[in-house]
Each structure stands twice: as structure tokens, then as C-alpha cells.
């Protein structure tokens, strides 16, 4: 295990009690990271340093003096509010007999309803059953439909050989789910294969893939990457961004796994876009700059 990965694992599982990092590293990974420390003095020192610093940060973080009397002022304010809305008069009104509401209650319980209303009322349980069955059916369909995280899609994209993109099968899913971003600029990019959607090998009928390769000019640098289009309901963790311009790299965990590539994701309408760019963080700003230009 290399230093970077060992430190990554130790950082995220250092103070964990609820298994939150299970998606990112296993117990074996953790054990391997621990044993890496025994053989790498530099990492062992780095971990000792950050743990020492973390303890100091935690201690200083809590060292905030509470102003004298602040808590009492709040308690007094709460007491003041509490006494206002509930007074004895309103309590008396609430508990007093109310002839109008009593009459309504009697009417509601009466069996002398018009026949049409009785018929409609008899349909309520049937409608409820149909609704429950429908919800159940769609829940089962939904549960058994495979869904992906943005990170998984990024990793699947990273497995693709950009140069052999053309050898992939065509996208076999619904064409509407393979639309390119509507932001201006995207349509002007130099699309590998003429913007023909290919199917991601892991899910060729659900996830469409495009490749773009923009050569360097005197206005901007080169940008090369893949973009996956996934129906929104097939993504587990929806990205917050609404466009590439506002998207930031998906996850720093991924940086180590994607090598020299960077992954960003955003959602637009009913689809989520995951874009894997070759060349790291700089290539993201390059692409954003290219899209911003009046012509590409």
C-alpha cells in the first residue's frame, strides 16, 4: 500500500464508530494501512503530528467563554413567551361544551347519509388497497432497479480506453435519457464519433457516454474527456450543482483512484451528468473556460 492511500484510509477511519467509511475502505484496508505505518517512518510521523494537532484543535475549538447572564436572558425570554399563548381564558373556552361541534360530531356519526355518499365511502377501502398495491409494486420495481453512485460512474468511465471509444456498442436506452447538456457551448465541442451516444459497458441501456477532444489553441488549452448521461432516478447521491460551471470535483477520494483524471457531476432536468476529464483539476477550469467562450 502506498503512503497516500494509507494516510487516506487512516484519516477517514481514525475516529469512526458508525461504519460510515465502509464504502471507501474495508477492514483489510485499514489493517494494511496500520501495518504500513510500522514500515514507513515518514507516514508514522505524519500521523503522530496530525493526531497531536487534532487534539490541540479540538481543545482550543471548545475554549469559547459563554457571556455571563446570556443563558438567564434566554430562559427569561422563553418563560415570557410561554406565559403568553396559554391563558386561563383560552383553556376555559377549550374545555367548555360546544353545542355546534357536538352537533357536527353527531352528524358525522349518523348512518343516515345520502346513498351516493355511502357508495363513495364504501369505495375508500378499495381505493386505499389499490393505492397501497400500486405503491408496493413501484417500490419493488424501484428497489430492484440497479442504481449507481456518482463515484461508481466515475470509476466506470475511468476504465474506458478513450481511444477505443468507437468500439463500444451504441447506447440502447431511451434517447431522451442521452441528451447533451443544454448549456451553450457543449454543442460546439469536438465530439469523438460525432456526438453519437455509446453505451457504458456496465449499463449500455441506461448510461450513455460521449467523448470529446478539444485541441489546444492560442485561446485555450486542450481538454479531453468523457461525459456520461444517467437518468436522475438511477443515481444514488444526486450532485448539488446544476451545471458544469458550478460543479466542483466530485470527491477527493476519487482523485487517487482516477489517476490523472478529475471527475465532476451535476444534474440538469431529469438527468445527471458525470464528466471525467483527463489532466486533473486544471483541465476542469480549461473546459469551463472553453464553454464560457462565445465560440469554441
Amino acid at each position, binding site marked *: 500500500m502506498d503512503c497516500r492511500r494509507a494516510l487516506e484510509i487512516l484519516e477517514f477511519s481514525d475516529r469512526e464508530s458508525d461504519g460510515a467509511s465502509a464504502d*471507501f475502505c474495508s477492514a483489510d484496508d485499514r489493517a494494511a494501512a496500520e501495518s504500513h505505518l510500522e514500515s514507513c517512518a515518514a507516514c508514522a510521523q*505524519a500521523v503522530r503530528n496530525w493526531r497531536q494537532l487534532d487534539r490541540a*484543535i479540538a481543545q*482550543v475549538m*471548545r475554549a469559547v467563554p459563554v457571556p455571563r447572564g*446570556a*443563558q438567564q436572558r434566554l430562559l427569561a425570554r422563553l*418563560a415570557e413567551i410561554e406565559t403568553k399563548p396559554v391563558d386561563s381564558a383560552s383553556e376555559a373556552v377549550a374545555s367548555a361544551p360546544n353545542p355546534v361541534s357536538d352537533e357536527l360530531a353527531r352528524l358525522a356519526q349518523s348512518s343516515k347519509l345520502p346513498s351516493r355518499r355511502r357508495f363513495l365511502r364504501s369505495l375508500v377501502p378499495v381505493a386505499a388497497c389499490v393505492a397501497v398495491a400500486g405503491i408496493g409494486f413501484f417500490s419493488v420495481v424501484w428497489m430492484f432497479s440497479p442504481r449507481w453512485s456518482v463515484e461508481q460512474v466515475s470509476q466506470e468511465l475511468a476504465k474506458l480506453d478513450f481511444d477505443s471509444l468507437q468500439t463500444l456498442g451504441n447506447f440502447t436506452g431511451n434517447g431522451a435519457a442521452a441528451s447533451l447538456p443544454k448549456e451553450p457551448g457543449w454543442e460546439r465541442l469536438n465530439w469523438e464519433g460525432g456526438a453519437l451516444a455509446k453505451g457504458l459497458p456496465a449499463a449500455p441501456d441506461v448510461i450513455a457516454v460521449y467523448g470529446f477532444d478539444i485541441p489546444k489553441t492560442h485561446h485555450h488549452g486542450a481538454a479531453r474527456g468523457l461525459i456520461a448521461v444517467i437518468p436522475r432516478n438511477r443515481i444514488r447521491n444526486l450532485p448539488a450543482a446544476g451545471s458544469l460551471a458550478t460543479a466542483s470535483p466530485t470527491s*477527493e477520494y476519487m482523485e487517487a483512484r482516477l489517476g490523472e483524471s478529475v471527475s465532476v457531476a451535476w444534474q440538469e432536468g431529469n438527468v445527471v451528468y458525470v464528466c471525467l476529464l483527463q489532466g486533473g483539476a486544471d483541465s476542469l477550469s480549461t473546459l469551463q473556460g472553453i464553454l464560457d467562450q462565445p465560440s469554441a
Partner: protein
Amino acid sequence: MDESRSAPNLAELAREHYALVYRYAYRLSGSAEEAEDLTQQAFLTAHRRLHQLRDANSAKSWLCAILRNTFLTRVTSQRSLQMVPLHGFWDPVQEQSAPPSFDSNELQQVLNELSEEFRTPLILYYFEEFSYREIAEQMAVPIGTVMSRLARAKTHLRRRLEALQSAPTR
């Protein structure tokens, strides 16, 4: 008197958690006046929503979430936060350093440099030792996002504090 009424419960919560909420407000806002105001506002909101608190054991998280929402509502209208860029977050090798030495103001100065989305998980992580899952629930974001933001923010915090310690004025 109806024992189920909210006043005694909220007062109890205020007695038990006031200091926590105030300190959290201070670290978020960076100002004592703002912190007291935010804390009071958060408890008044909690008073209106007390019926939403189903489990007394989760009161701490609940109050922190209300405080953060109160803070966000305020800063959204002010939009005065300044952000610093956060770079890659791994420092595989670090030189051995002297025992850390920095004060509360210096820490706050570095916290103030971070945008709220990075500052909040950092405060919750160090301050009350909330788990990743609890932080994710409070911020309503995926756990992976919390871990990612936390990693970047921690690296920034460590670098800046180390820089402060090695600054010639110290």
C-alpha cells in the same frame, strides 16, 4: 398544570445545551454578539418546533441543526462570507513539529477563511465529536460529501495553523 406542555422541556434543553449551542454559534459566526443573538433565535425556533423532537437523546443534534439553519438564513441575506481556495488535501510527509501552540482567536481566524460548507463539518467534528453520519444528517448531504469536505477543510486548517506557528511574529 399539564406536564406535557413544552415550556419545562425547552427550558431544560436550554439549561443543558445553551453553552454548546452558543459555542457552536460563536465558531460559525466568529462574533460573540452574533453568537448570542443566533443562539437565542435558535432556541426560539426550537420552541415553535418542539413537537418535532421525538427523541430527547437527539436534542443536541437537533439544536445544532436549527442553529445552523438560523445562521445560514442570516448569512444568505448578508452574503459576506469570504472563501479561500482549498487545494488537494494529502500531505503524505510532514516534518516533525513542536507541540501545537495557537489560541482561540487564531483558530477562529482560520475558520473564518473557510466557506460555511467546509467550516460547519469541521466545527462539528472537532467540537462535539459528531460522527460522519451525524454531520451528514445535520447538513443534509451524503456521508461521502461530508468526508470529502472534512478532509479538505482539515488539511487547510492544519496547514494554516502550522503556518501561524512558524510565523516570525510568534
